[in-house]
């Protein structure tokens, strides 16, 4: 069933591509909430836009996407979170940024605005800042409970965020996250930016996924402007996306093992990660491949010696990685830490629409490369690994299997790399146009929604990281585990702070 079926709407928006956008009234909005609450579709995103709220929905069988828009009256809209908890944090963010209130929302605390900005509701009807109400963490009641506050500055080289643990001895009774520390106001900087500047900002939403973000942004811009990147650029972008996935998965597999004090794995996968970044640098002139993917195509061609470097990387990875996998599989003391630790329930993964290895380790097979099938993945041969066990171990194995698939994909891309142009000319269309782009980053699907003005400048851009639907599941995964296992659980999720906080 397409999510649009049976949702009453007032009007379809003509300039929205490639999926439909419909303006709905109360009845349509409430029907969508009903579908979400009963699992007939998945929430892909919920964001504000001056006095409107938009939600993106994905069909139950990943078959079809639609954006629904609701015009708020007096700054109010019916809360989605009231019946569908995955929307709660999104609604809190919308309120902080736009001043739009979700009527009936179960949680009205702030989410991004911590009282340090000079303005209130910076993206909506802005006004002078007000002193915020004290932030009250959710209660946990019982005998012998104590709280452990952690962060925002953490003990290792990671991003800032606050974790409030309530524990009984060693066991975690409740974890509550408080994020927003690295909120940079990216969506406000996007407003009025040229496409090139906006692409740079998109590429710095989450540095570890710079390719995936620039890619989704480019797809959104191209579909809005009805242009297509040349075939060579289509392949080069996907090649960079797979190199990015390899680098991150290598890093994560080692880092997870390192959190179980198994340092040799970390040392070995760090070598593979470094070799991946060096191959990327040789091929595209930047270790993280920032700013190479641009609207219209790619900013530069792959260097001739870059292809040789990437082939050498593939050979090395195929030589070394299987041994490391064997080492992981045969080390009982390591498995003791990862098996049955931090289990995410399949029901939650479905309800939250969690993507990436978090979803796929708990039985949700969604992978944007497969189910949306954007080029060139629609013509390449790869499998999407899925497991049901949902623990740290499963998230390690999903990454291992995805490394193997990425190697296979890169083979095919190098073999089939088309010749020809690198970039299609990008010209303003002279009218307002909108595009939605979705790509599969290493941690899950990235959504970019874009509205361009007739002059080609950005009117509104929303970027939604996969972490929005993964962070809350980390809270559920740690429950009943011991405090000392939090780092390994957290690493197995490796959610983005910057991508979430924006």
């Amino acid at each position, binding site marked *: 069933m397409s999510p649009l079926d049976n949702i009453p709407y007032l009007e379809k928006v003509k300039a929205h591509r490639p999926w439909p956008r419909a303006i709905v009234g109360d009845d349509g909005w409430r029907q969508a909430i009903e579908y979400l609450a009963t699992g007939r579709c998945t929430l892909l995103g919920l964001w504000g836009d001056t006095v409107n709220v938009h939600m993106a929905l994905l069909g139950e069988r990943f078959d079809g996407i639609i954006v629904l828009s609701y015009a708020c009256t007096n700054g109010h809209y019916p809360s989605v979170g009231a019946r569908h908890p995955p929307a709660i944090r999104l609604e809190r963010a919308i309120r902080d940024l736009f001043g739009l209130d979700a009527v009936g929302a179960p949680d009205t605390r702030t989410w*991004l605005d*911590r009282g*340090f*900005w*000079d*303005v209130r509701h*910076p993206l909506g009807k802005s006004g002078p800042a007000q002193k915020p109400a004290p932030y009250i963490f959710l209660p946990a009641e019982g005998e012998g409970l104590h709280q452990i506050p952690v962060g*925002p*500055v953490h*003990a*290792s*080289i*990671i*991003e*800032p965020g606050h974790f409030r643990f309530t524990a009984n001895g060693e066991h975690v009774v409740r974890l509550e996250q408080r994020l*927003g*520390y*690295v*909120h*940079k*106001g*990216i969506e*406000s*900087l996007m407003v009025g930016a040229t496409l090139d*500047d906006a692409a*740079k*900002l998109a590429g*710095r*939403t*989450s*540095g*570890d996924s*710079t390719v995936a973000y620039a890619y989704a942004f480019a797809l959104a811009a191209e579909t809005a402007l009805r242009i297509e990147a040349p075939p060579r650029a289509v392949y080069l972008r996907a090649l960079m996306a797979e190199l990015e996935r390899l680098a991150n998965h290598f*890093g994560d597999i080692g880092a997870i093992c390192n959190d179980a004090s198994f340092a*040799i794995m970390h*040392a*070995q996968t*760090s*070598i593979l*990660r*470094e070799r991946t*970044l060096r191959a990327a640098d040789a091929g595209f002139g930047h*270790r*993280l491949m*920032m700013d190479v993917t641009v609207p219209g195509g790619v900013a530069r061609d792959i260097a001739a010696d870059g292809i040789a470097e990437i082939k050498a990387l593939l050979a090395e990875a195929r030589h070394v990685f299987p*041994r*490391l996998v064997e*080492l992981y599989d*045969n*080390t009982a003391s390591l498995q003791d830490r990862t098996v049955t630790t931090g289990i995410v329930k399949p029901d939650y993964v479905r309800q939250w629409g969690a993507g990436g290895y978090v979803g796929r380790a708990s039985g949700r097979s969604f992978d944007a490369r497969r189910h949306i099938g954007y080029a060139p993945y629609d013509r390449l041969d790869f499998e999407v690994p899925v497991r049901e066990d949902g623990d740290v171990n499963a998230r390690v194995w999903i990454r291992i299997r995805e490394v193997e698939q990425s190697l296979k994909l890169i083979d095919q891309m190098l073999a089939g790399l088309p010749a020809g142009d690198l970039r299609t000319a990008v010209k303003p269309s002279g009218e307002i146009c909108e595009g939605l782009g979705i790509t599969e980053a290493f941690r899950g699907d990235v959504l970019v929604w874009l509205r361009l003005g007739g002059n080609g400048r950005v009117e509104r851009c929303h970027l939604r990281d996969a972490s929005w639907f993964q962070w809350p599941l980390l809270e559920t995964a740690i429950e009943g585990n011991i405090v000392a296992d939090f780092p390994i659980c957290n690493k197995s999720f490796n959610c*983005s*702070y*910057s991508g979430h906080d924006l």
Partner: protein
Amino acid sequence: MRKTLFESLTHGVLTEPAPAPDEAGLAELAQSLNRAARARLGRSLSIRQVDAGSCNGCELEIHALSNAFYDLERLGLRFVASPRHADVLMVTGPVTKNMREALLRTYNATPDPKWVIAVGVCAVDGGLFAGSYAVAGGVQDVVPVDLHIRGCPPSPTELLKGLIALLRQTSAKTSAR
């Protein structure tokens, strides 16, 4: 495991020679270090990294400093978990308004003598994020900075150059003033 260990012994050392110190960094540092501090610290520095709002790109490259190719610890440099144990704060990002206070508190928790290294172009003046309602500015707008290592993100080699320049200065026998 045996195979992996054996091959590690036979394939030779991956660690590469350390680069020469960054000249611009040396000049910047010459102004900020005094003789007493050099005498006290010798050739070893403990670093506390603080992400004050970065996109996480800089963190990835700072992490890479610990891999076999760069092997930071051979130079007497190591990352520590608490600002109380640190000589150096390595700060990334435009400083967001939401992180400003946490950065200040971390700075105040670091014992003297201490140095602050601002890493990445955003840390200089906010970079692409300058002018946002949510950004306080570069690192030096919040705490005093002794050394800037630019780049988006700086490569591990560029980071090493800056760190070696800092080490040179802290361990120099004579004053540069």
